[in-house]
């Protein structure tokens, strides 16, 4: 694993993976979206509103997965001090935050006709909202320090503290008797019809591959801006006047 702590080597792999994930994401979206939104059967109770699920569920999974990547990257950064792990954690957080917000928003759109209210204070919804706040706190903390290194470490510790929330979100529908539906994918297999499972899996694939591509783009930008920062510092140290950023 430590072999890939070298940013150059890591980015080589990331850059090879990225065209493939982008292609898979495009293919899955092109096939999955029409199937999910037009040709898949409406639910016998929910009618066409069930189609919101094809966006909502992949977004929810991605929001959780992105946080696990952030927490995992932070743990690796704190334990082995691999900077690339922290850069991955940082790159993953805003993407996760956006999908978390998307999940909450689509859930509200669905809740209005189905539950009669866009929002209830049940365990799943509340813990997902806390996840969004954790993301925002994580992002805010990283930008609050003049010393970047100090911000990195504070962020990593916060990500680990917040990871307590992840199992709570995942098991909330089992631990508490909530209004939210139980999971579709369980150890025993899928609990929905195959005609609905196919578009759902396509959309999950599309979202996941899209996430990987976006994170790689953010990684590139982050590493480049670090390079520029170092170059400017070196330039400033050599006494050449530098224009303000």
């Amino acid at each position: 694993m430590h072999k890939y702590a070298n940013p150059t080597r890591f980015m080589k792999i990331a850059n090879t993976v990225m065209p493939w994930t982008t292609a898979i994401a495009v293919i899955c979206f092109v096939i999955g979206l029409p199937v999910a939104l037009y040709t898949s059967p409406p639910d016998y109770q929910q009618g066409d509103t069930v189609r919101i699920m094809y966006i909502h569920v992949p977004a929810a999974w991605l929001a959780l997965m992105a946080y696990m990547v952030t927490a995992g990257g932070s743990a690796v950064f704190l334990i082995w001090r691999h900077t690339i792990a922290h850069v991955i954690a940082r790159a993953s957080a805003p993407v996760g935050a956006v999908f978390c917000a998307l999940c909450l928003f689509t859930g509200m759109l669905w809740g209005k006709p189905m539950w009669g209210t866009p929002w209830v204070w049940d365990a799943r919804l509340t813990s997902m909202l806390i996840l969004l706040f954790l993301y925002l706190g994580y992002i805010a903390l990283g930008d609050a320090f003049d010393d970047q290194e100090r911000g990195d470490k504070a962020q990593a510790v916060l990500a680990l503290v917040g990871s307590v929330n992840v199992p709570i979100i995942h098991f909330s529908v089992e631990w508490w008797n909530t209004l939210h539906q139980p999971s579709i994918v369980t150890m025993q297999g899928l609990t929905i019809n195959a005609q609905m499972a196919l578009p759902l899996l396509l959309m999950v694939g599309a979202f996941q591959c899209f996430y990987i591509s976006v994170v790689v783009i953010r990684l590139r930008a982050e590493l480049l801006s670090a390079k520029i920062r170092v170059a400017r510092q070196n330039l400033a140290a050599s006494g050449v006047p530098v224009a303000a950023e």
Partner: protein
Amino acid sequence: MSAFTAVLRRDLTLAFRQGTDTVTVVAFFAIVAVLFAFGVGPEPNVQARIAAGVVWTTALLAVLLSLDRLFSQDFDDGALDQLIVGTDALIVVCAKTLAHWLATAVPLLIMAPLVAMALQIPASGIAPLMLSLLLGTPTLSLLGAVGAALVLGARRGGVLLGVLLLPLYIPILIFGTAAVDAGLLDVATATPLKILGGFLLLALALCPWAAAAGLKHALE
């Protein structure tokens, strides 16, 4: 252990000699509760219904308000460096957190029944309220220590502290008020109290280490 008692005694002495800090926090607690009383109007039924939530929310905000003093004063004047050099960061964190709880949360605990009664809480709600605060406030201090250590040296640390900590405080608020509601409805209060106890044990096991790591990084 002697280092622990020395830091604890130092912090408590400082807290009580500069008594205004403690008084300010308690006064803030009482005033915000009064704001709620005026905000919802004098209707006793409405006040009784929201009393537990108001006491818990205000206590939480009062603790949050007092947190930036936990490490930041000692960080600014360099005393924190000396303390960490002399002993382990973990011991400093534990002692300072305990001192913070004794100097901030205990006065709040004394004020809480008065504030709750002023908000017309029925007598059956007082005992669960006090028990839930007793079990919940140490968790607030422990989580607060992590937040306070992480924002050391940050710009606008106080505001940031709220953004970081309030999401983590939400579960404690939920089960704290759930205990009081259970008491008012005359059903078993044991379950939410046990969950609060569980939170406290979890926080005791994890927070000192996270806060110590944060302190070390801040002083690097």
